[in-house]
C-alpha cells in the first residue's frame, strides 16, 4: 500500500488546478443536451483542446499529454472539483477512442483521433435499436456489401442516441452477415451523419432536453475505411467499448466526490438558513460522502490492478452498479433537503443552485438504465464473477 501521490503527480495536480481556475467559465453553461447549450459546450471543448486538456491520457501525437491512468484520475478530480462544464464529447473520447486505440489501423487513428480531440468530429453511439435494448445481440440494422463501390450500404434504425441530433458521426453495430444470428455476423462501423440516406430526429428526454435522437438509415453508403476491427467481428470489438463505458473511464470518482461535497455544502447552507435539523437527512448526507469516498478508494484498487496488468473483466459491472445507484441516492437526498424547492427548475427565480439538483436527479435516473441496465449488470456479476449457472 502506498497511498501517496508522487511529487510529479502533485505537480500535475497543481498544473490542472491552476489552468482550470483561470479558464472554467464563471457562470454555469446552459445544458449541453440542448442545441444552444451544446454549441456553448463546444466552445469550451475547443478551449480545453487548445491547451491540450481535452484528452490528457492520449499520446501527445493525437493531442493528449501521455498522462498515466493515475494522472487521468487526478485530472478528473480537479475537473469536477472546479465545477467545469459537462463533457459533451465524452462518448467519442471515452467510448470510441479506446476501441480505436485497440482495433484501429494507423490510418484510422491518424484520421479520427485528432479530429475527436479537437471536437471537430462529434461522436454518438449507435447501439440500441427499437427492438434491441438489453438484448443488444438481437440488433437488425444491416450493412450490405457493395463490392463495386468498396464499402457497405446501411439500412435500419438506431435509437436513444445521446446528443445524436447535435453530433456529426455515429459509431455502431450493423449486421453484415445476413444469415447470422445473435453475436455473430456483426460489424463495427463509423458513420458520418451527413451521409446521404441518414436522417436524424432529435426528441426530448425525461428532463425535457433534446438529448435523445433516433437515427434512420436508408441505403446509406460508407466506404471500407469506416470498418473498425474485422468484418463480422463487431461484437468483440464493441465489447471493448462497453467495458470502458461501465468501468471507471466514463464515470470517474471525481464527479461523485464533487457531488457529495456540493451536497454537504447544501446541507450547511440549509441549516444556516434555519432549516430544522433532521437526523435522517444528516445521516443521508454523510452516507453520500461515504459512498463517493468508497468509490474513490475502490477505483484506486481498480487502477492498481490495471496498471499491474490484472484485468477487471466482469468486475466493471460492480463499478457501474455502484456509481449509478449512488448518484440516484445523492440526488434523492438533495431533493429531501430542498423540500418544496426541490421541484423548481432553472427557469424558476426561487430555485436553489439554479435548479441543478432537480435536473441532476432526473439525469441520475438514467444511470441505472444506460450502459446496460442494472438488471443486466447484476446478471453479469452473478454469472461471471460469482459463477452462478446461466439458464
Amino acid at each position, binding site marked *: *500500500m*502506498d*497511498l*501517496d*501521490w*508522487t511529487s510529479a*503527480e502533485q505537480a500535475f495536480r497543481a498544473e490542472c488546478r491552476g489552468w482550470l481556475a483561470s479558464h472554467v467559465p464563471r457562470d454555469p453553461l446552459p445544458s449541453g443536451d440542448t442545441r444552444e447549450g451544446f454549441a456553448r459546450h463546444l466552445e469550451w471543448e475547443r478551449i480545453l483542446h487548445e491547451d491540450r486538456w481535452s484528452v490528457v491520457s492520449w499520446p501527445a501525437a493525437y493531442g493528449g499529454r501521455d498522462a498515466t491512468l*493515475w494522472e487521468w484520475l487526478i485530472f478528473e478530480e480537479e475537473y469536477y472539483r472546479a465545477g467545469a462544464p459537462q463533457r459533451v464529447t465524452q462518448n467519442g473520447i471515452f467510448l470510441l477512442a479506446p476501441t480505436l486505440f485497440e482495433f484501429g489501423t494507423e490510418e484510422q487513428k491518424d484520421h479520427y483521433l485528432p479530429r475527436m480531440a479537437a471536437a471537430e468530429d462529434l461522436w454518438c453511439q449507435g447501439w440500441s435499436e427499437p427492438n434491441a435494448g438489453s438484448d443488444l445481440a438481437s440488433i437488425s440494422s444491416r450493412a450490405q456489401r457493395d463490392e463495386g463501390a468498396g464499402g457497405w450500404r446501411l439500412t435500419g434504425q438506431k435509437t436513444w442516441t445521446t446528443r445524436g441530433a447535435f453530433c456529426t458521426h455515429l459509431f455502431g453495430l450493423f449486421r453484415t452477415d445476413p444469415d447470422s444470428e445473435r453475436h455473430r455476423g456483426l460489424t463495427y462501423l463509423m458513420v458520418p451523419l451527413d451521409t446521404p440516406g441518414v436522417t436524424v430526429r432529435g426528441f426530448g428526454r425525461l428532463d425535457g432536453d433534446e438529448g435523445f435522437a433516433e437515427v434512420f438509415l436508408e441505403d446509406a453508403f460508407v466506404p471500407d475505411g469506416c470498418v473498425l476491427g474485422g468484418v463480422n467481428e463487431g461484437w468483440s470489438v464493441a465489447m471493448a467499448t462497453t467495458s470502458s463505458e461501465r468501468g471507471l473511464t466514463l464515470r470517474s470518482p471525481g464527479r461523485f466526490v464533487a457531488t457529495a461535497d456540493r451536497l*454537504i455544502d447544501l*446541507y*450547511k447552507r440549509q*441549516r444556516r438558513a434555519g432549516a430544522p435539523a433532521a437526523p435522517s437527512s*444528516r*445521516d443521508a*448526507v*454523510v*452516507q453520500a*460522502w*461515504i*459512498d463517493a*469516498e*468508497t*468509490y474513490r*478508494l*475502490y477505483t*484506486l*484498487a481498480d*487502477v*492498481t*490492478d490495471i496498471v*499491474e496488468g490484472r484485468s477487471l473483466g466482469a*468486475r466493471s459491472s*460492480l463499478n457501474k*452498479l*455502484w456509481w449509478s445507484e449512488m448518484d440516484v441516492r445523492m440526488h434523492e437526498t438533495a431533493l429531501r433537503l430542498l423540500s418544496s424547492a426541490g421541484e423548481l427548475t432553472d427557469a424558476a427565480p426561487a430555485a436553489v443552485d439554479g435548479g441543478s439538483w432537480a435536473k441532476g436527479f432526473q439525469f441520475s435516473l438514467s444511470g441505472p438504465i444506460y450502459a446496460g441496465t442494472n*438488471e443486466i*449488470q*447484476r*446478471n453479469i*456479476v*452473478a*454469472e461471471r*464473477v*460469482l*459463477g*452462478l*449457472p*446461466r*439458464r
Partner: protein
Amino acid sequence: MRFAFSDDQLLFRDTVRDFLAKECQPERVREAWANDDGLLPDVWAGLAEMGVIGLLVPEALGGLGMDELDLVLLLEETGRAALPGPVIDTVAVAAPTLARLQQAPDHQPIAGWLSELAAGTLLAATNFGSPLVGHADVASLVLLDVEGELHAALPGSMALVAQASVDGSRRLFTVDTARDSTVCLARDDRGRSCIEGAFDRGALAAAAQLLGLADRMLELTVGYVKQREQFGVPIGTFQAVKHHLADALLALSFARPAVYNAACSVARELPDAARDVSMAKACASDAAHAVGRHALQCHGAIGYTIEYDLHLYLKRAWALAASWGDAAWHRDRVGVALGI
C-alpha cells in the same frame, strides 16, 4: 500510489486462511458455543506460534513488531472462520495500547504482559467497545476506561455478571470494579488519547472481521444455490436469486477498500484516522448485515436452522456490527469530521 497489499502480506493471509480452514471448521466453532469458556486453546496457540497473536507486539518482547496494515487481512481471516475468543481485544486493541505505554519507564508489568500476550498465554478484555466485556472471566488482564482514565484490572478484582450474546461463543460480562482495585496506566490527555486510539483499533478490527464473515456467508450461499434444485434446475439460475447475490457482492466489494484504507490511516497515524475508521466500520457493518440478509433469504428454511452452519457466521456478524460503535454511530462521527 498503489492500493494493493504486498506479496508478503498476501502470503501471510493465505497461510492463516489455510490454517483456520483446517483447524477452525464450523464444528470447532460449535464446540466453543457449547464449552465452558467459549475458547479454542489449541487454535489460539497455533496462531500465537504463527505470530498472529503478537503481530503488533514489539519484536524485543517476542512479537512481530508489525502494524495494522499487516494485521487487517489476518483479522479478516479470523472473521471468515468465525474464530472464537477475544481476538479483537487481545490482538488488535490491548497489544498496541500496551506497546505504546510500555515505552514509559514507570510501567514495569507492561513488558511482561506483552511477552505473555505474544506467547499466547495472556488473554485481554476491554470495555472500550461497549460496557459488555467479552471473555472477562478468562482474561488475565482487563483494560478499562474509567471516566477517561485507562486502568488495568487483574483477575479476582472484578465482580462479573454474565450477559448472554446471540452468538453463543461470545461470553460477555458486565464488570464492576471496586474503586482502588485497578491500576491506572494513563490519565488525563494521555489516558483519553490511549482509549480513543484503542477504540479506533477495535472498531477497525471489527470491521475487518465483518468483511471476512460477509465473504464466508456469500461463499456458503453461492455454493448452496448452485446445488439446490427446484423446478428441476439449480435455484442459482433464477434472476431473483442472482440479484440477491450480486447485491451482496456489491456491498462487500465497496466496504473492503474502506477498511483497508482505514488500516493504512491507523498504521500511519494520519490525522483523519478516526474518520477513516468510522467510515470503514459503518460500511462493513452495513455490508455484513446486508450480505447476511441475502444469504439467509437465498438459503430459505435450511438457513433458518441451527443445524446448518450459516447461523454461526450470521450471529457473529450481528454481534460485531453492533459492537465497537454501530453503523449509525460511526456515520455520526464521520459527520462531525465533515463539519456537519
